[in-house]
């Protein structure tokens, strides 16, 4: 189910996270300043014990009241400084980090829009969505805390240890004792945690897919009363996720226990040794107090490393998942147009076109094989073939939703590979069998197919051609919102709007994939009558299942076994081709003979 885990490339967390640099670069000044400010703030905290030491050994021991005032004033100033610096750090990164997250999300969205259709065939949108939301939030959190604080804590610990070593090197060494075992544990932990957190994130993606499908397929689930089994599938996945999350918690618990216990034992040992030294008069009471406050001030810096590492690890996995999609190659760049002589109106031509899905095994038979077709300017050609014969695939090649494997397609003599997709898709308008409307008004949905200058007149004409005048009777007329966010329309209504969208721009080339399948006979007849006028001046390729649609076209091509098996007028083929007759009448082939 999870397409995401095909090849889990093993990268170290650091290498994964380094890939974030291009996105972080624009805000690097702020981020570095913030880190610097945080280090400053943290060190301010470390100076306070030194002031305490000075107070205890100096003014307090000397009974010097004004010295006490001075010391307290220092403590207050340092405290206020720390408060302002910590606030400053957050203020510095608040906007930039939200910006980084947003940029990465926009980048992902833009990239996904330009990935080959074949990619989208493979990836459930739940997996994509979880990358755009949960994963990116993790990345933002990483940039906000662990990234800064791993650095800050590191510096704080080093500075703290140096302060302690200067005060009393024996006690300092005692405190440093657990450093090696803690580091070893952290490294071990990081590795294991990486695996489990990757698994958890993929399971979240799978769960999202189930949620999404059960929402999108709700009519089927309800129609068959299958919500129980759907719920069971959901429960199984969420149980699996629970198991993984618990495993994660267990790893986290171990590292926490180690990080809490070992340093605390070291502090205890330092306390005992320190007490002995104070008793022997080798150490001042003030130094011991300062030493212990420094050690305890470092406590948070050490303890938080566990959770900082955990977030970093999750962020690394999230980054990996993000780039898994970003590394997919976009549709190949548009080639610069060579100066081929354009032969004027030549219509739409397929020259020996062969197509195999790019992800299909290379030894599998191609879906389309050696297709040669010529649709003359202004002519319309119907494409007929059995269910699953590759008609829809063939139509997808013209606007380059899929790229031909070999052969060429030319529009008026110009190779479509030599045009930019933008230009090509402006020339070719398409109506899909599954009519998708976007969250926008009816008018906007239709006018998507036209140049920006198109307005009311074009809209009305297109609606009239597609017999979609019902749009005027909607609650807010053609301004009524439809799609995900708006009024739900029937299949037939959507199909007519999709057809209107295809014809609104008066395209030179029109590709219609069974455009009338959801219409009733009356509407269909009316649409056909109106379409005939449009088709008279357009070069069109029409996928058809029914004689009535075929009759819209001047000629018919029969697609069979990935090849063009016959071509001619409807009546010719009915007489001469048994397969065609079978497809068009449904009668047994013998009867036609």
């Amino acid at each position, binding site marked *: 189910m999870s397409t995401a885990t095909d090849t889990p490339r093993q990268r170290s967390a650091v290498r994964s996270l380094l890939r974030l640099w291009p996105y972080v670069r624009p805000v690097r000044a702020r981020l570095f300043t913030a880190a610097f400010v945080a280090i400053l703030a943290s060190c301010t905290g470390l100076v306070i014990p030194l002031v305490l030491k000075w107070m205890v050994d100096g003014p307090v021991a000397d009974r010097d009241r004004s010295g006490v005032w001075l010391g307290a004033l220092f403590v207050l100033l340092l405290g206020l400084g720390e*408060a302002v610096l910590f606030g400053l750090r957050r203020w510095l990164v608040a906007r930039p980090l939200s910006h980084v997250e947003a940029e990465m999300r926009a980048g992902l969205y833009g990239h996904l829009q330009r990935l080959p259709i074949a990619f989208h065939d493979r990836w459930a949108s739940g997996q994509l969505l979880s990358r755009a939301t949960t994963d990116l939030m993790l990345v933002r959190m990483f940039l906000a805390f662990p990234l800064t604080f791993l650095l800050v804590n590191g510096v704080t610990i080093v500075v703290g240890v140096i302060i302690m070593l200067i005060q009393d090197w024996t006690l300092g060494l005692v405190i440093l004792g657990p450093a090696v075992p803690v580091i070893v544990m952290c490294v071990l932990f990081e590795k294991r945690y990486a695996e489990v957190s990757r698994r958890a994130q993929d399971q979240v993606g799978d769960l999202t897919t189930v949620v999404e499908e059960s929402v999108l397929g709700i009519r089927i689930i309800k129609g068959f009363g299958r919500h129980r089994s759907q719920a069971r599938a959901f429960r199984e996945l969420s149980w699996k996720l629970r198991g993984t999350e618990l495993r994660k*918690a267990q790893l986290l618990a171990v590292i926490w226990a180690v990080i809490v216990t070992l340093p605390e034992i070291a502090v205890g040992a330092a306390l005992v040794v320190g007490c002995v030294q104070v008793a022997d008069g080798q150490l001042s009471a003030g130094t011991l107090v300062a030493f212990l406050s420094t050690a305890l001030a470092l406590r948070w810096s050490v303890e938080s490393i566990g959770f900082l590492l955990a977030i970093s690890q999750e962020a690394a996995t999230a980054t990996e998942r993000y780039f898994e999609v970003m590394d997919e190659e976009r549709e190949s760049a548009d080639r610069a147009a060579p100066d081929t002589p354009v032969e004027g109106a030549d219509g739409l031509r397929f020259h020996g076109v062969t197509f195999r899905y790019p992800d299909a095994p290379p030894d599998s038979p191609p879906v389309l094989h050696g297709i040669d077709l010529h649709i003359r300017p202004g002519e319309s050609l119907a494409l007929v073939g059995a269910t699953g014969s590759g008609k829809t695939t063939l139509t997808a090649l013209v606007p380059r939703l899929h790229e031909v494997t070999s052969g060429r397609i030319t529009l008026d003599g110009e190779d479509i590979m030599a045009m930019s997709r933008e230009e090509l898709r402006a020339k070719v308008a398409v109506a899909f069998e599954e009519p998708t409307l976007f969250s926008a008004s009816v008018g906007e949905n239709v006018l998507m197919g036209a140049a920006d200058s198109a307005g009311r007149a074009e809209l009305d004409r297109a609606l009239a051609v597609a017999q979609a005048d019902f749009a005027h009777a909607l609650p807010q007329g053609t301004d009524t919102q439809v799609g995900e*966010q708006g009024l739900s329309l029937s299949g037939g209504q959507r199909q007519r709007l999709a057809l209107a969208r295809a014809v609104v721009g008066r395209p030179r080339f029109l590709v219609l994939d069974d455009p009338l399948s959801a219409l009733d006979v009356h509407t269909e007849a009316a649409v056909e009558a109106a379409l005939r006028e449009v088709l008279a001046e357009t070069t069109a390729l029409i996928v058809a299942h029914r004689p009535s649609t075929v009759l819209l076209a001047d000629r018919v091509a029969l697609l069979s076994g990935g090849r063009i098996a016959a071509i001619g007028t409807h009546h010719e083929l009915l007489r001469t081709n048994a397969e065609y007759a079978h497809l068009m009448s449904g009668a047994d082939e013998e009867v036609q003979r």
Partner: protein
Amino acid sequence: MTAPTTTAPAKAAPRPEEHGDPFDRDVLPTPPGATGALLRSLLTPLKARVALTALLLLLQQAAVQASPLLVAYAIDEAVPAFAADDHGPLIAVAVGYLLCASLAGALQYAFIVAAARVNQDVLLDLRGRIFRHAQALSIDFHERYTSGRLISRSTTDVESLRELLDEGLQELVMFILSTVYICVLLLWLDLGLGAVAVASFGPLYLLMRAYRRRAGRVYRLRSTAIAAVIVKFVETMNGIRPVRAFRREAVNDADFAVLNKRHERTNGDALLEMARYVVGSRTVANTAVALIVLWGAHRVAGDTLALGVLAAAVLYLRRLYDPIDRLAMFLNSYQSAAASLEKIAGLLAQTPSVPEPASPRELPVLRSEHPGREVVFDGVRFAYRTGGEVLPTFDLTLPTGQTVAVVGSTGAGKSTLAKLLARFYDPTDGRVLLDGVDLRELPIAELRRGVVMVTQEAFLFSGTVAENIAIGRPDATREDIERAAKAIGAHEFISALPEGYDTDVRKRGGRISAGQRQLVAFARALLADPAVLILDEATSSLDIPGERAVQRAMATVLQGRTAVVIAHRLSTVEIADRVLVMEHGRIVEDGTPAELITGTGRFADLHRAWRDSLA
């Protein structure tokens, strides 16, 4: 949601006109107290384990907070004793420290594991509830509440609760416990110093309250903003083909940028609120520390306070105020979780408009060996909530075993009729009876076994082809599945797929055309073996031989079953015993195909037109 709005959606006045309902703005009404009740109901079954977790934390904090006390004891008692050659107290300190450290670690481990178990069970419960509830809500609801929103309820909103539970709640309890412990210890060590520390919580509380109020607003906005981003994202990915074909990429980028920017802004606002809070709380805390140091040092100098006590007090203060930043993190996740929970509670508060019956009735035992049942529409009228009448009052009886074709132009009310029979909607007035039992009195599971509807949108779920067919009857064997596929003419193409019936429909080579998907949908329906079968334009993507094959199969399959076939292709009508012609919600013609064809009504016209098209 396509136009960016800068006003707070939560506060926007409901628009009176037809489409200004709460669905438009993603703010379903949440009954007061529902959020709290939801949280309580999630935690109640786990009471014992919550208590255990709390106890573990209580003990853990006791172990952690003992160390400064040991420091005070060591400085004030053990050092002089050691100097006097009494090693006992210092050994006691050493043992005590070791014990506390080990206990703190062990308890920390136990606590994290126990807490994770509680958290995961809460999330499991909540995810399941949202999922089941969404599934139980009527089609009517799904048509208005967009899929993107529903998805964001069960993903990002649950995620923010997870954050609260994982990080926030633990922080909160730890904060409360350590605060109480430390305050008590400070008061015990020295009443005066302790009082200053306790007093500092006055201003801290005020700061927190102000932060909560301000951040709450920001978080609600943020949660709405991310939902809008998700809706746009899902819509684009699901409609990627037309997006490409109509060169929507740039426009989409721009639209998405607007939504994304809005989220970015609210996100930044939330982080800035946090920064303000941190400055305030740190200032209060550090001022309190300075005050205590000043006063304490004075008293040590005046010999009214032991040095060890001052040292312990300072160490404790550090610990007292350290978690305050993290408390803000808790408030953070609390705010965002509260906003999310409110939305989830709003969703869960939606009652299915097609509810399970209070006192269910069973269908009578079948009287003959035929699986069909009689359907009666008794004075049924249907209008949308917003007022538009779709079906004026009508009566209709479909006898057992009859195959009825319903024809008419788009928008004539054919699909509504079918949806009433499948109980996707309930009638506004009147009743729909299945063998004399009102559909509203039938348990939904029984209803779905009895009445199956196949629609033209043939959605495939991830999984294999066989699994997709088996949706019709989960306990079906492979033979059953293949038999159904063969009967409908789908066996051939399925066998030709790379892994046959085991081909994953989303994996390589699993591409399945629209027509093939409809065949799968049919096989699914066949397998379900229902008493009443409704086909709503279910053959629209099939080619003629495919349609013929389906019809041949239907002719045998429908034998004895009651069937309603909605089709715009009149070829389907040939297998029907009876034809209903609908127009503007009314049944305008009713008779056998032969009667209607030879008559002079609309059907005769339609039929002629269709015949001509076959020429």
